[in-house]
């Protein structure tokens, strides 16, 4: 866990771990894994809310639980920037982590692959692999997406690549 800030570390240790090693092709075991994913997400979301640090919404977009969609947001200079959030559960899950996508930011930053998949830090993937199958979606959001937003949103805003929705509205009025 070297290279992580103490906040992320302490948050991470409080997200419930998962135990079932199963992917979307594993039938009943996948259903069990999905239950664990939900429990872990519920705990993480409640924890964020209780700490007044609510920063995402995510839920399965199909009954199989292989496609997930939602929103995430980041507050910079007292303004809230919100983005669509989506990812697929890969067939080799949980051996490989989900590839988190922010489609609205596609093409706006170097820290992204085509299709809006965020570039994860060099720390993330080895840590994910080492902790397979105990890390789940909640951990990927905490260790992957949260640090990415914290690093990239200020740069995107300051460089003018993204604008706050109020600024866009007032610009179109004038």
């Amino acid at each position, binding site marked *: *866990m070297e290279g992580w800030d103490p906040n992320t570390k302490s948050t991470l240790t409080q997200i419930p771990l998962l135990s079932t090693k199963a992917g*979307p*092709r594993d039938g009943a075991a996948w259903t069990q894994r999905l239950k664990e994913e939900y429990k872990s997400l*519920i705990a993480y979301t409640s924890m964020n809310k209780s700490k007044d640090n609510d920063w995402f919404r995510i839920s399965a977009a199909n009954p199989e639980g292989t496609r997930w969609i939602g929103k995430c947001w980041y507050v910079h200079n007292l303004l809230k920037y919100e983005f669509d959030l989506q990812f*697929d559960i890969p067939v080799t899950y949980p051996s490989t982590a989900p590839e988190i996508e922010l489609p609205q930011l596609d093409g706006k930053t170097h*820290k992204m692959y*085509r299709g809006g998949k965020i570039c994860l830090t060099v720390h993330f*993937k080895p840590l994910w*692999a080492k902790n397979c199958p105990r890390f789940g979606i909640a951990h990927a959001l905490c260790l992957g997406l949260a640090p990415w937003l914290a690093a990239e949103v200020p740069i995107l805003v300051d460089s003018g690549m993204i604008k706050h929705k109020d600024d866009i509205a007032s610009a179109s009025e004038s």
Partner: protein
Amino acid sequence: MEAELKEMLTDLDTLKRSLPDHPSLNSSIDKMQLRVEHLTNLAKSAPGRRLKVKDMSAEVVDSNPYSRLMALQRMGIVENYERIREFSVAIVGIGGVGSVAAEMLTRCGIGRLLLYDYDKVELANMNRLFFRPEQVGMTKTDAAVQTLSDINPDVVLESYTLNITTLQGFETFMSSLKNKTFCPSKQGIGVDLVLSCVDNYEARMVVNQACNELNQTWMESGVSEDAVSGHIQLLIPGETACFACAPPLVVASGVDERTLKREGVCAASLPTTMGVVAGLLVQNTLKYLLKFGYVSPYLGYNALKDYFPTMEMKPNPQCSNAACLERQNEYILAKPARDAAAKAKKEEASEPDSLKDKINVLDDSERNITLLQESETSLPKSATLSLIASITILMEGFVPSNPEVDSLADAQIRLSLAMEVLDLNLIKQRLDHLNAL
């Protein structure tokens, strides 16, 4: 086109005759006629598509597309070159390496190619080989089929525009590999070899999963994000290390494959390195399919030092991939039959020389990795040492648990027992409720 141009000339002629004598009009019609004649000549010289060839001929004439390949037989390199037409090869990822590999196999007259990619051609791809600027915006699979079918219409091309890492894409991928309509008499599944030319760890793990489940031999290839090193690797399920047993790049360079960035904006790329890796990959493919020479189990390429490390990796008995473990068991069970066959073969011919120089750098009983180093190659000692060091690093990476998280895991499991009775829908509703707050 030629016929239309001819008609145009006739029309112009009629027009000229029907018009009253008018010098300026006549001269402009003359000009137009000259232009049409020029176009007709251009159309005549434009290369037509070559017709399909029924049998590969060894006849040395300019019009025979296979004469130089069939010469391999006469020179005693390949026993039966024409067998290449029976083989099906699947290429996953039609990027800098995959597209060039596809072109090489097409020019060699491979029987059938299955092409998989979900991406589109971009101008940013033009620093690599194969794709042309006018193909920008097409899917890589369509653009590849366009070029390859022009080069060699004898090759059966199947293109799949899909992402193999998604559940649906994976199912199509698996069923396309299993389809045996091209050569129903063939043993095993519908393809003879799978080539992984993808640019990310996730997709490699998917190819690994599919090939382990289907017991299909495959070759992996890769180029580093700094564009100055690459590798190819032969993976035989149960017999050699699978991709989940030990990611190869860690062993070769001390870089963890998982941290590698992909093409796109994050990485550099060179047509040279990608061309070299594609060449090594297809060379190994031809040797494997047509049974000539030595098929490399792993071949690295370090462009900065022009150093080509080779090694062999045995499967990891603690591999996290269940299908890999099944294949390993089958391989162990088949040992007596294999030994008998090997003994019979040994009596026929003596062992190839290259194997005699084998030096075990590592204790393979402990690491399950054997390094092969031919005695005449001058591998610097430091490189050997760093290789050993990086393997150790790799093994540390395999430590399956993190003590800090472990004790917590137990506490969490106990806590979650209370929630075990809830069914999935109820839990889902709880998250939805929480999300709505």
